[in-house]
C-alpha cells in the first residue's frame, strides 16, 4: 500500500511541475509581489540554521538548499 501511494505521487510530480514551468517575463517594476516578505526562500537566516541543525542531528539526512555547514557533535 505504501509503495502504491508513493508511486502515484511520483507519477503526479511531472504534471505538477509542468504547471509551474511556463515562464512569463516580469519587468523590474512588476516585482512587488515577489519582494513581499512572505515570499522569502528561508524563514530567517538564524531560524533556517537552527532548524537545519535540529533535523540533521535527529535524522539520517542532511543538506538541501546550500552546502552542509560546519560540524557539531551530531554524527
Amino acid at each position, binding site marked *: 500500500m*505504501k*509503495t502504491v*501511494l*508513493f508511486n502515484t505521487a511520483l507519477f503526479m510530480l511531472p504534471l505538477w511541475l509542468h504547471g*509551474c*514551468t*511556463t*515562464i*512569463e*517575463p*516580469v519587468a*523590474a517594476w*512588476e*516585482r512587488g*509581489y*515577489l*519582494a*513581499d*516578505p*512572505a*515570499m*522569502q*526562500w*528561508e*524563514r*530567517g*537566516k*538564524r*531560524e533556517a*540554521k*537552527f532548524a537545519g*541543525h*535540529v*533535523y*540533521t*542531528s*535527529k*535524522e*539520517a*539526512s*542532511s*543538506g*538541501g*538548499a*546550500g*552546502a*552542509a*555547514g*560546519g*560540524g*557539531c*557533535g*551530531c*554524527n
Partner: protein
Amino acid sequence: MSKLIALRTDSRLVKSLGATLTALPAYQSALADAPPAFTEVGLRYSHYSEDSLPEDSVIFRSRSRYDIDVTQLWIEAPVGGAWSIALDVQNDAMSGASPWFVGLGLDGEPGVIMSGASIQDNRVEVGVTTRYFWADGNAGLAISHSDEDDYEALSFAFDVAWNSADNSRTWTASASSSNDTVSPVKERIPVFIDEESLNTQSIYFGVSQILSQTRIARIGLSYTQSDGYLTDPYKFADRRPDTHDKWTLSAGYRQFMVNMDAALQADYRYYHDDWGTDSHTLEIGWHQNLGNHILAPYLRYYTQGEADFFSPIADRSQAFYADDYRLSSYGALTAGVRWTVQLGDWGIEAQAERYRSSNDWGLFDGDAAPALVDFWRATVGLSWRFD
C-alpha cells in the same frame, strides 16, 4: 556529545521593511545586489525538549531524554558600499540521557538501555561571514568554530550568487569544508576511543527562476563526502564505515496569492547516501500577511529508509552495525507555526513546532527502532535595525 543540535497597520510596506537584502533569491535581484541597508542585531532563544520514552521501550535507566536551551546572538552590518559582515554566536546548553544500546526485553521485544544519569554539556559556536556585492551578484566567505567537552569543529564555507541579465534567474553555488575532532568524555559510560577526527566536504549548485509576477521556483543539487571516524562513540554496539557519500536533490516553490495577501510555500528534498538510506522531505507553509504581522503555519513530512547495517538490536557479527534509531526506517510529521512582526526598527518572532515519528508512518520498509524521538520546540526572538 551534542545532540543538536506605526504606523498604519494594514500596509504591506511596513512588513517589507523587515526583508533583508542579504538573502539570495532571484526576485530580490531586481533591486540590483546591494549590502543590507542598515545594521541589525538580534537575539533568539529556543527550547527543545524530547518526549520521555514509553515505559515498554525502556529496559534500563531513565526514560527521559534530551532538553536543550539554545541562544543565538548576531550582528550584521554593511561595510562601505559593497561589503557586509556578520558575527554569529550560538550557545547550546544540553542536559539529559540518550540511548546507549538496544537489547531484548523480558517481553521478548527490543528495548533501550539508556546512558545513565543526566548529562550536562555546553556547546559554543562562533561564526564570521563576510560578503561582497557587485551589480550582478554577491559572494560570501564564512568561518566558524564549534566547541564543547567532547567535540570541536572548524569549518569554512564559500558561496556565490549570480543573476542573469534580466534578473529573472539566479545561479548559486557553494562549497564547504569542516574538520572535526571527537574526544568522548569517559566518566558517563565506557568509551573505546581517545581522540579521533573526521572531515566533511560539501558542494551545492542551484538555480532559481522567476515564473511570473507572483511565482518563483528553484532546484538544487548537493554532494557531501565525509571521511574519518564516523561511528558514535557513546553507543555500545556501533561500528560505521569510515566514509560516507551523500546526495540531495531539492526543489522549492513560492506563490503569492494577491487576493488573500498571503504566500504558499512548498519545498521538497530527496536524499540518497551510500550507507543505504534514501529519504523524502516535503514541507508546505502558508504565510499570511495580517497588517504588519505575518502568521505562518507549516507542515513537514519526512520519511527515511534504514541504513544497510542497521538492525533494532545491533548484529555485531557483521563488518558494520548500528542500533541507532536515526539509521532506522520511519516517517515523521512536524506541525508548527511562526509569527513575526516588524514595528519600526524592531522585529519580533515567535515559533513553536511539534515533531512526532513512527515506523508506521514511513514509506520505506524496515524494522522499527524502539527509541524513535518525539519533540517539541519553541523559539522567541528580537531584532533591532539601526544606522
